[in-house]
């Protein structure tokens, strides 16, 4: 960072009008291409010269990638639909409110007007070492600067670390996992649909990527199945500021309560690990129980099993325990926005 940059570098810009054109370009340029949706994550990387793609494929002209439509009783959200559109959409607000809340927790109004749902789930980690261009594992090097005895790592991982201790910063991702969303991907070989939690990968799978997209792949849409429409939802995000801040941690749960007991549940946290974590063991433990404070306590304790704090992030363990507790049993006093 000897040179603090203030202007954009040169690159070749493509603005394809269709998904087919975009996929063809991505197939042609592979590792040299950078997919740009809203540009919020992109511009910092490029301006700082930390990522130096030769080609930028700007998706802003691909109309078929943007918009929200009903599909199979649920919804299909185009990947370049802005976060603001997601937040305001009446069906999302009415039936899938957790996604509206999660998307609204991201960034600031200006950023949500430009940032997209596909970009929000696909954004890179905020690890300040990685972002400043340090040659770490994730950048292709052979060390993690955030996991040394003196490293500054209050925002880093307590779970799932494998050499790299960075976390995923998306606020919409845990909501999408709780809703059992499906991610639609166009690859050079055709279309592929994966469960939300399988879209994200940890450093054990590939230390240089945060999701399954490979060069040439494109996330085109996110589908919300009807199964969880109108469930009992809980979303909470903890951050330093009330706006324009990535999560120190967030939690999302969807529950179907029958006869006062949890019949079905999906639960996820983010910013605890390199990928948003679906807490299946907790779901199993609380299914059939009443969604009360006692069940919340059990859930919270179970959720943090195996957590390993770094020097400055031990607080994330009680934080995660309490967030999961609230996601199941609610909060004694109303939480504020």
């Amino acid at each position, binding site marked *: *960072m*000897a*040179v*603090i*940059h*203030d*202007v954009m570098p040169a690159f070749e810009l493509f603005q394809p009008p269709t998904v087919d054109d975009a996929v063809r370009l991505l197939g042609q340029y592979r590792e040299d291409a950078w997919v740009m949706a809203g540009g919020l994550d992109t511009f910092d990387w490029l301006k700082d010269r930390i990522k130096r793609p030769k080609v930028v494929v700007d998706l802003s002209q691909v109309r078929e990638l943007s918009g929200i439509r009903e599909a199979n009783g649920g919804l299909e959200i185009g990947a370049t639909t802005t976060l603001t559109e997601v937040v305001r959409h009446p069906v999302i607000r009415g039936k899938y409110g957790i996604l509206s809340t999660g998307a609204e927790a991201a960034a*600031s109004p200006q950023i949500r007007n430009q940032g997209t749902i596909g970009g929000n789930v696909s954004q890179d980690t905020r690890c*300040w*070492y990685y972002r*400043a261009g340090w040659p770490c594992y994730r950048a292709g090097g052979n060390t993690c*600067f955030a996991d*040394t005895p*003196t*490293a*500054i790592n*209050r925002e880093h991982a307590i779970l799932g670390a494998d050499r790299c201790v960075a976390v995923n910063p998306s606020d919409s991702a845990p909501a999408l996992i709780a809703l059992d969303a499906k991610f639609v991907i166009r690859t050079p070989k055709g279309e592929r649909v994966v469960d939300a939690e399988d879209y994200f990968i940890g450093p054990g799978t590939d230390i240089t990527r945060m999701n399954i997209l490979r060069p040439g792949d494109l996330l085109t849409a996110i589908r919300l199945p009807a199964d969880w429409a109108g469930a009992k939802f809980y979303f*909470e995000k*903890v951050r*330093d*500021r*009330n*706006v*324009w*801040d990535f999560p*120190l941690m967030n939690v999302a749960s969807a529950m179907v309560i029958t006869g006062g007991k949890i019949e079905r549940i999906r639960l996820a946290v983010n910013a605890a690990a390199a990928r948003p974590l679906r807490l299946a063991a907790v779901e199993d433990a609380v299914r059939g129980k009443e969604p009360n404070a006692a069940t919340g306590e059990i859930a919270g304790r179970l959720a943090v099993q195996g957590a390993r704090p770094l020097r*400055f*992030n*031990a*607080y*994330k363990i*009680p*934080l995660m325990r*309490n*967030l999961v*507790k*609230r996601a199941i049993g609610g*909060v*004694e*006093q109303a*939480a*504020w926005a």
Partner: protein
Amino acid sequence: MSRPSKLTPLKTIGHPTARIDAVERVTGKATYTGDVHLPGMLYARVLRSPHAHARIRQIDASKALALAGVKFVLTHENCSVVWGAGSISGGRQYVDDIKKITRHKRYLFNNPVRFFGEPVAAVAATNRHLAEEAVRLINVDYEVLPFVLDQEAALRPESVKIWPEGNLSPTAKNEMEPEVYRRGNVEEGFRTADFVFEDRYTTTYVHNAQMEPRLCVAGWEGDKLTLYTPTQGTSNCRHDMARDLGIPDEKVRVICKYMGGGFGNKNQNQDADLIAAVLAKETGAPVKLELSRKEDFIGVHGRWPTTQYYKVGVSRDGVLQALQLRGYSGMGPYRKNTGGIGGIELYQCPNVESVTYPVYTNRAVSGNYRAPEFPQGFFGIESMMDDVAYKMKMDPVEFVLKNMTRKSDDEVPYTNYTLEECIRRGAEAFEWKKRWHPPGADPGPIKRGVGMAFMALRSPTGQSSAVIRLDSNGRYTVFVGVTDIGAGAKTTMALIAAEALGVPLSNIEIVWGDTDRCPYSVGESGSRTTDMTGYAVIEAAHDLKRQIAAKGLPKGDNVLIASASPNPTSEGKVRKAFGAHFVEVEVDTELGRVRVLKYLAVQDSGRILNPLTATSQVKGGATQGIGMALHEDLLYDRQTGQPLTTGYYGTRIMTHLDAPEIEVIFIESDDGYGPFGAKCIGEAGIVHAVAAVGNAVFNAIGRRMKDLPITRDKILGALV
């Protein structure tokens, strides 16, 4: 906002008045430095050190110079200009004699480089992209040296010596001594005290984070330099530039019409100004240099971080007997300001000792930020005293009323004294007795708590100048060397002139922000412009009225010109503004989250000249204080000495959603000094805000947060 005033109302002064340049600003007509484009202008960029401390073995700029369009590269090898305001013994900013003898001089380009982000080279090229590309092509061979970041650690013998004499920054006499203040005998005081308490508090480096980063445009016509730069003091900046470049003051013209805020970040001249001026001289073309946000965060300055050790002796009935501070201030590797730690002076106490060590470290340089030495010191001592009150089982407000200052240093009377009224009225309006509860008593998990802190802040009188010209059309043109850093100085000067002349505001025109057109003004620092330049405007108005009385109103092409350069003093008395802040917070003890629910600021800044802008000043200061209390920090990697959280997002400066509704009550007074009795206000809102928030957090959770900022991790850590 409310104003329980006993003062006689005035005609123009004291009524909510929109800024006279509001329309220009909001319609984009106002010209900022960034809008200045001169014919043939070159663009500069700066190469900065990637190390916290390193010796430069060699700089190879040949590849950069080989690029077509690159005009010049400055380095320590071809530029030996000393930046006088960048480092001065004792941190005494405006004293040329000390600059001359200053041992630890700061050059525009230093070798060794002593902090990450220190300028190593500067390039002038025909466009910004080219300048940036050229900077990338400069090859520097560094010998990396050990470094030290912490102000207390820097004084340990094993720490690297940043300067040959060591890391204690010298006094104004170049003596390697701490800054000491004593009265009475603290040892004796502790011996006779019934209770003695000791504790340690720390504060962090926070950045001014003003909207507009530092930038400038410099151009020479013959031997005269014209500098467009956002500065909080055109007169001081001109003098600084002239001294550093070795030319007479009149060969420098500084222009600052509009600027995007400063909060102390733009006092004096900055290395950017000098770099642009030298590059313009070398290339024979005007040069524009704009710092990016990241550069501004590490390349200019912020508030000095501190470590404060307090020892407090009290009698059984809660009266202070002895008060001791040992403090360490991290100045970065150059001494740009005093490194003082204010706060001891807030208390009445027979035995006092304050020993402060301004220490060199390899962090970004520390300097002015809105009340430079106060918010950090007030946080330390007012947290400490809040804790003493708690341990003495006293209501903190009662403890303050018993022990607060009544005379300056318990000796010299104030020009007027309203501190007690500020506190009592605030406690009443806030319903302190109803809201306060024993610390941690709220069962939670979301706990409420209240805190208060008070202040007395210097409000000196002093020298400044003004000129007023009256033409035959009844137009009064007021020439004042002010710039408007956001506080509304232009409007304030117009209000004062209209009131003093007894004419409508619309008859007044202000000429400002240009050293070739305006007389000396003290500069927008230390909350002094209204007091000092405002007073000069009144004196000039009196002069004009005398002339009118003698000669009649001007007719035809005639004009009358009046001027004044007063230097009033408050002999035998100390002039201070007073205030008290009351805060209610809610702490979510499961998530570590703090939310400010209610904020009341009671302020005596003498007579309020414009309630609109005065209220904004108090609110803005309190808002910055809340940010410093709760989340602002510039984190450094300890292996490399690199800053990790530069910029608005990284350092977590306040947003609109973090700012609570702040209620302001003005206790107006007229002590007979200043323009119509006005006292300082610009810095008055921030100084005690940090402590008030910290004390409220303590009252909520029953755990004392001693290290800023009070982030979620620290709260959860304290409660586990």
